[in-house]
């Protein structure tokens, strides 16, 4: 039934798949993904392991809040000193055995509350700064509890490490693991893939149309088949290229990860697992959490409605791509060169960019009003619905959204085809929005 459109699809697909650029990006992307997975934890592990990496902190404790003692950890070495502030700061500048100078005092207005001034030779990271503050705060709290008559053993026993298991109770009464961090991650990742694919492959559709128009082959071709057949052939052909590339990326990434884990030293693997948990390799507690943490991640993924997520993702991936690439095709047909296209691509991409920004808000309220309406609009649903999928979306909502998508796709393609078939034969003058509107209405 595809007929001549099938011949166009075949050309669009085969000419692209045979290019070097296709294979280079197909192989480089998984390499990049694996490198991004392996390098940061490994680097931070190496960084943490190297000699003298602990921060050396001088503390000038004017009000003796610490009572001359503070616990030193793997990453922080404290040295409590006395003396005059100005003199000590001047010494710190010259002294190469300390990285940070901390001046601890009480607030003049509230003598019970301390404050610190942290001076360092180079800018501190957020983590470093908060670990210094936290260590000092903990020590002061401890002293105050001891002073209030609480025994040291009680204090030690009272320390709690809370591990959270988030569960969602399904309608059938089943408890399902739902680590919101993991759900968040999956939603963001999937919607990002769609966002990126629409841009990459939509732009390819546009460039293809401009090429056909500027080298004038288009007139020969549309004296053989209908403009819409040519447009759909191009959109479908490039869509297939996208799907193939996407499938290859998944397979290659899995293979590369397997190969990498096999070849990597064991401690790198541990570092990666710690990193995956989100704790950061430098944190000593991370490794304790890791075992349970990884399990929780895995459990959350297993408990997802996999069929809904996968089917939904594929549907919105294709739907979003078709919808937007028809618009990109219309833009390509309306202009004579890529530089002219920019003026029109911006309004086309705004809903997509907006959806991606809104996705962050939607993630905080996946069942809110905003989430609902943005999931119904075909221009934003490919991003918003996919973000919501891991959290579970009511069936009727999903079906309504998909129906809207199909209707929206047909409508947008029909309008885009009207612009396309006139634009493709119009040369010279760059059309205005008014012209495009006329083409759309009068056809």
């Amino acid at each position, binding site marked *: 039934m595809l007929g*001549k459109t099938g*011949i*166009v699809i075949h*050309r669009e697909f085969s*000419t692209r798949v045979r*290019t070097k650029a296709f294979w280079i990006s197909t192989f480089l992307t998984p390499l990049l993904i694996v490198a991004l997975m392996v390098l940061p934890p490994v680097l931070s592990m190496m960084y943490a392991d190297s000699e003298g990496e602990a921060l050396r902190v001088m503390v000038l404790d004017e009000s003796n809040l610490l009572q001359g003692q503070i616990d030193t950890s793997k990453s922080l070495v404290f040295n409590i000193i006395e003396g005059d502030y100005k003199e000590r700061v001047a010494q710190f500048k010259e002294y190469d055995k300390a990285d940070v100078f901390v001046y601890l005092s009480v607030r003049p207005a509230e003598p019970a509350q301390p404050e610190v001034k942290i001076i360092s030779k180079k800018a501190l990271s957020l983590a470093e700064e908060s670990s210094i503050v936290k260590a000092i705060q903990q020590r002061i709290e401890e002293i105050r509890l001891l002073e209030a008559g609480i025994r040291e053993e009680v204090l030690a026993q009272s320390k709690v490490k809370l591990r959270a298991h988030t569960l969602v109770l399904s309608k059938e009464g089943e408890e399902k693991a739902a680590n919101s961090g993991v759900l968040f991650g999956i939603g963001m990742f999937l919607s990002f893939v769609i966002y990126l694919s629409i841009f990459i492959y939509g732009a390819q559709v546009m460039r293809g149309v401009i*090429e*056909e128009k*500027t*080298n*004038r*082959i288009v*007139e*020969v*071709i*549309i*004296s*053989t*088949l*209908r403009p819409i057949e040519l447009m759909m052939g191009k959109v479908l052909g490039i869509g297939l290229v996208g799907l193939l590339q996407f499938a290859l990326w998944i397979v290659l990434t899995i293979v590369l990860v397997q190969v990498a884990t096999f070849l990597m030293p064991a401690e790198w693997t541990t570092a990666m697992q710690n990193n995956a948990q989100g704790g950061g390799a430098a944190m000593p507690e991370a490794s304790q959490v890791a075992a349970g943490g990884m399990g929780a991640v895995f459990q959350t993924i297993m408990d997802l409605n996999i069929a809904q997520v996968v089917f939904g993702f594929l549907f919105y991936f294709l739907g979003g791509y078709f919808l937007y690439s028809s618009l990109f095709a219309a833009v390509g047909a309306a202009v004579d060169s890529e530089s002219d296209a920019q003026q029109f691509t911006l309004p086309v991409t705004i809903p997509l960019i907006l959806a991606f920004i809104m996705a962050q808000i939607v993630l905080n309220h996946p069942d809110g009003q905003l989430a609902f309406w943005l999931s119904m609009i075909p221009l934003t649903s490919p991003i918003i619905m996919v973000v919501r999928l891991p959290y579970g979306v009511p069936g009727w909502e999903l079906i309504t959204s998909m129906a809207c998508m199909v209707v929206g796709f047909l409508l947008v393609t029909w309008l885009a085809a009207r612009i396309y078939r006139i634009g493709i*034969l119009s040369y010279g003058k760059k059309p205005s929005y008014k012209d495009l509107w*006329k083409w759309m209405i009068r056809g």
Partner: protein
Amino acid sequence: MTLLQAEHIKKAYEGHVALDDVSLTVPHASIVGLLGPNGAGKTSLIRIINQIILPDAGRVLFDGQPMERQHLEQMGYLPEERGLYKKMQVEEHLLYLARLKGLPAKEAKQRIRHWLERFELMKWRNKKVEELSKGMQQKVQFIATVLHRPRLVILDEPFSGFDPVNAEIVKDEILELNRQGTTIMLSTHRMESVEELCKHVVMLHASRKVLDGSTRKIRRRFKEHVFEVHMAADIEALPEGFSLLDKKTVEDGLWAYRIQGAEHLPPNDLLRFLIDKGQVIHFEEVLPSMKDIFIKLVS
């Protein structure tokens, strides 16, 4: 027998009329020239015939039936502004276009080989289009136009961009196709280039048809009774009603004359008079060129 017929075609774009009640008839196995200056409406008419655009009024008949999309497979079209996919190889490009015209791949391949050999492009068949010279690319475009053996070939400015040698090759191919029964419609603003090719012409000017008929008949219709004579005699006087327009010495003892006659004066009277004066080597009634006729019509 008529292969193509356009009836009362009207087409207006925003702000201007491109075709105003234009009708034409293309007889089977003929070569018809569609003449007119740039902007006369030739390309619009061709696009309507090719179903690329729709007319506001009027209809097109192909082989007696209202034109449908399925007829497009029996037509070949070489547009004025032409191009190819630069990154595709010559042979696969031709195969693509042939398959769009409904030719099965296997048969298309055989015919492509045949044509590539004919145009001496065989060794270029696996090269990308962008590696070919412009002339070679135009040959490829011509092959693509005729590969599926269309019954009607429409050529819009077929000789533009060709060097004289290749223009001649293409002209020969057009004549050969016509000998084999292909109907050809040829559009050009260079009117002198089609006089020898087209037995029939349609002339458009400012969106209207100004002329339609056999080339010979049209030229006779617009004749101005001018005769060109070469003879071995120095003539001073002419018979009653004839006047001398120009006189030149071709060589010693041989003169060339342009003589103005009139409609009521038979040319034989002139010839008889001249034969009595000396040896007549050449006697021809000068017919106006299409360009002259066009200028006369328009002014």
